[in-house]
């Protein structure tokens, strides 16, 4: 009886640890754009119907488009994003991680 209770305790601990980890690791699933350059980067983001310009300060980062979008970087390249990427702006062009 004692053994069973102990085992149940162990099970409970394992489960709660598992849940804790799940809660702790809740991921951020929007594309994150980080500007690694020294000057402000101006990006054109096309999300849904609208085409908006966003400016990201040097070293700053921004979460955009959770459902997928298109991005035009300062270098003139266009890339499509699914919405779960981490994008870094290096020398005006986008590096998707």
């Amino acid at each position: 009886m004692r053994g069973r209770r102990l085992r149940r305790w162990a099970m409970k601990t394992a489960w709660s640890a598992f849940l804790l980890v799940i809660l702790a690791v809740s991921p951020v699933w929007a594309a994150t754009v980080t500007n690694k350059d020294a000057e402000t980067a101006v990006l054109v983001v096309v999300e849904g119907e609208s085409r908006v310009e966003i400016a990201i300060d040097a070293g700053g980062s921004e979460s955009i488009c959770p459902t997928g979008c298109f991005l035009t970087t300062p270098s003139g390249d266009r890339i499509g994003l699914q919405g779960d990427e981490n994008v870094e702006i290096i020398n005006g062009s986008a590096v998707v991680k």
Partner: protein
Amino acid sequence: MPSKLSVFLLSLWIALSALPVFAQDAATPVQGAQPVAVNAQTQAGEQLNAAREDLTRLSDLVDKAKSDDNRLAELKVDVDATAKKIIGTSIATRPRLDEIKTRLAELGEPPAEGAPPEADIVAEERKRLIAERGEINALTGDAENLSIQATKLSNSITATRRALFSNTLLQHTDINPEVLQNAGTALAVEGQALSRSLTSWISFAWKYKRLSLLTALFLSLCAALVFLSGSYRLFSPLIRRDVKDAEPGYITRLSVAFWSTMIPTTAAAAFVLSSYFFLQSFNVLRPDIAPIIAITLGVSVALLFVVTLANAVLAPGEGNWRLVRVSDLGARRLMFAIFAMAAINCLDYLLGGIGEAMGSPVILTVVKSLFASVFIGLILMAMALIKPMLPVGAALNSQGRPWPRFMSVLLVVTGGALIAAAMLGYVGLARFIATQIVVTSAIVVTAYIGILTGKAVAKQNAFADTVVGRALEKRFGMGQVPLDQAGLAAGLGIYALVVMFFIPLILLQWGFKIADIQAWAYRLFTEIKIGSITISLVGIFAGILLFAVGYFITRWFQRWLDGSVMARSRVDAGVRNSIKTGVGYLGVGLAGLVGISAAGLDLSSLALVAGALSLGVGFGLQNIVSNFVSGLILLVERPFKVGDWVVTGTTEGFVKRISVRATEIETFQHQSIMVPNSLFINASVGNWTHRNKLGRSDIPVVVGYDTTPRRVMDLLLEIADAHPLVLRNPAPAAVFSAFGETTMTFELRIYVADIVNGGGVRNDLRLEIFERFRAEDIGLPFPKDVVEATPADPPAEVAEDKQPPQDGEAQAADAKPETTHRRPRRVGSSAAGETP
């Protein structure tokens, strides 16, 4: 020396011959990747073209289906899928773009004015790469535009549907005698058309498709047999009112009401679907007849649903099964009113469907609905006159009282509003409200009864009283606790059923389309967005499931390894336990990792958690972690195993279990003590049974000076030799260990094969010593009462357990409680401090 030289030459040769190969290898990818990448781009271009065509087609379809809400909902799903596809296409070109950018960076900037020109091949490659980059960008730009177009289309569909809904609901028709007259003529035309097409269809089907028609009808009958009577047979204890039960309990009434509504309705729906399917698949139906048949079948199921529900709740015939407290007469009248409303509403829909199938003018449908709404309004107002309420304590068949004020006002106002809306020309609205009153309230009532049933069943010990509970108890002999747990599960199951079944049903009633609900459910299960966080329920469930599977596989593998492999290979029990536990930790860890990655959580973000945890370990968790690590060390080093007799600090006993944080030790009094693992690592641990169970046991004997010491020692040895459990090798020894003031102390040292038996052997020996000394007249010079009177002066008697401090090693448990007392005691009275 020559050999060294040859090795050197050989390696040089290999290195030289390998060089060009490396160079070639380095050169090939860029050239080799070229056709592949171009292929990928043309492929992307084709996909985009396909998507463009899809969009054009879809937007045409949307234009055509401007008034068909159902179709629009489906089209929206398609459009959204196309938009997703467009983004996917552009993502596929990303790797090539990255490659080009990297290569361009490698090539560097073109030389400035005046600088020496670069090699042609470099300039050419740069040119080519830049052109390709432009192509990809153009392609992505296309995709961008298409995506905008798709989103616009999707949004316009939503707007159209919204407009459609409010239009149908608030459409206004002037009601005047002329309209009624027109409707009358149209009705006559429709009746003729209906009878014509019905007769022509029947005669056609009979003449040319007799076999198919009969087969379809026969199969439908079979389906009816299967679904209707089958469900009745199968679930009869759930849905039948037990006539003998004079005073049915609340749960029984609730559950009978719920299931006697749910099961026949579901069975009827299944029957209707299958017979329609048979008619359709045997090609008996004609396009003009099919919708009429479909709506007739559908409407009958709806009517059946409402009527069975009303019957279940009101139970006009059997007052003791009634769920609401109303009088017999009131129940009968309410039942009739509800039946009339449902029938009128169903008829309205049936006639509407027929009108649509016959292509009658819209005004006819409007007028039909007008009448239906007015009738329903009248019935509602008439319901206000029914006197169903019963005063507390009154018999069910006594005269009822009127409704409470708010209820009758509500009925009158609703009925009046319905009539007014219909008369003013807002027939669509009136019809919508009438349907809501009949069907939606029926669904809500059923759902409510379902939830009440679930709640009642899930209550403690309630399940055992139900029919199913009793059946389970009888069939499987389930005890109270499993039955209670089964009740909880059943309650939760009923909740789930109610939520999954009735919420979509109500949404459908409110004009949402199946495609919408599917899309919502899909989104609910795959991506819930909270701010910028997306949670996928399916992913998390999959993760948990995988973890559970991994966990059980680990347990099974552990058992198999322990029971089948290691048990037969005669591995030491400690090693077995260690391997088993280690495999368990490893398996659970792996299952956790697999589960986490299946749940869609990025394992790299675990690094973050690990960082945070290490800080936590530094502060608060260090004890737990150190215990865990100590547990691992205990498993590897194995200073003791399960079953060993260990001593640490003040704790002594047998090891029962070595687990993650602590080790369970059972003392000789059967008290379980959890000793943290780190204590075993940091402090010294005594183990009586580490390599073997052989151990020494000492028995001190105190005798007066009037005895010959040699005689005493001989006697002691003799006694030890006579005992069967005392080992001959190492031989027992008798030692003259100390001179006292009035006594001599001897010690009998014996070895036993199993130290666990030491206590019993000592006890036997002491008894034997006492008896032999008395027989030999050695240790009893003083009378007993003198002994009792002079406690400070120990007599030369066979004393026991006056343990000198230096030989505590063998009798730790024996000595502890008795080191302080100096008064001689009777032999055998020290059982409390005895080792087993």
